[in-house]
């Protein structure tokens, strides 16, 4: 967690190419998950479902547009850390909506 914070600060403090950050995150996650994959190579792996793919595509599309509407694309975490009132308002509203949606979804999934 501390690494996450420090690296996020490094990204904020330095002028970095955000596309490079985005692309290398996948590689970093793959490398981090590799030991676990090797250890469980004989067990059945999780498979993507087409419903999951549709949900992920629509979620990515909607969230980028919503963040663009709020002018928060790539700026929510930095806005929170820099004390921007709009970032706190966005984060608070998003959390409220996410909590309601997550509880509804979990209840639906369990029934």
């Amino acid at each position, binding site marked *: *967690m501390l*690494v*996450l*914070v420090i*690296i*996020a600060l*490094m*990204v*904020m*403090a330095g*002028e*970095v*190419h955000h596309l490079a*950050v985005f*692309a*290398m*995150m996948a*590689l*970093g*996650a793959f*490398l981090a*998950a590799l030991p676990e994959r090797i250890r469980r190579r004989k067990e059945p792996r*999780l498979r*993507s479902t087409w419903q*999951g793919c549709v*949900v*992920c*595509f629509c*979620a*990515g599309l909607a*969230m*980028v547009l*919503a963040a*663009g*509407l*709020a002018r*928060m694309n790539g700026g929510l*975490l930095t806005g929170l*850390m*820099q*004390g*921007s*009132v*709009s*970032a706190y*308002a*966005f984060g608070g*509203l*998003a959390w409220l*909506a*996410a*909590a*309601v*949606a*997550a*509880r509804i*979804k*979990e209840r639906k*999934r*369990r029934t």
Partner: protein
Amino acid sequence: MKELLLGGMAGLALGIAAQRLGLHRRDDLRCALGLLHPAMLRRLLLAVGLGTMLTALMMWLAVIDVDTVAVPPLDGGTVIGGVIFGAVLGWSGLAPATAPVVLGADRFWEGLCAVAGCAAGALLLPYAERIFPALRGWLPASANTWFQVTLDEPFLFAGGFLGQGCIGLVIAVAALCVRRPKEDAPPEDIAPAEEPPAPEPASTAPEDVQDETFVAILPGEESVVVDTQEDPPEPEVE
């Protein structure tokens, strides 16, 4: 070139940290947002709190140039966008920042679709900007910060970087107040069961009850079957 190298290294480390935090597991992230998974919520809040404190310190030390800090205005778009963003986040358990982590760590095709969705959103954004002013205009815009951390933007309270650090401290303390989970987290890469197995119907008929089974039926409760058979004796070692 320096931007690419620095960004690549930062992205690599961010990906490793996000995977270790478990942000690639959509169900866990959803439960954390819904206050159903306190461990991850605790970590996320602690990250924001510590990050806020460190940011205030780095701004005070002039490591972060306050001239480059952009404060987006609070207007109608913030409210509508925040609600839509949060609803989709809670429903899907996916954020734009965690899409590449899902791609690399867990489910390749779902992660790829999420990244494709983000890219499609970025492509559509210039066209959507045409209707955004109408959605933003119902609330007057104000670009404030809580404390004075920039040179030009208005601020609400006096206190400067110290006050900003105090906000981070409050968030970190709030994170520490989130109760710890009683049980260990489930092992990684194991999806939670979609539906719990249906319990076998317990029969209360006398002929169905075995010798070493005790059937307890409490008023208003479901029937509970308790197996009272003792463990087999361990073989003696000579």
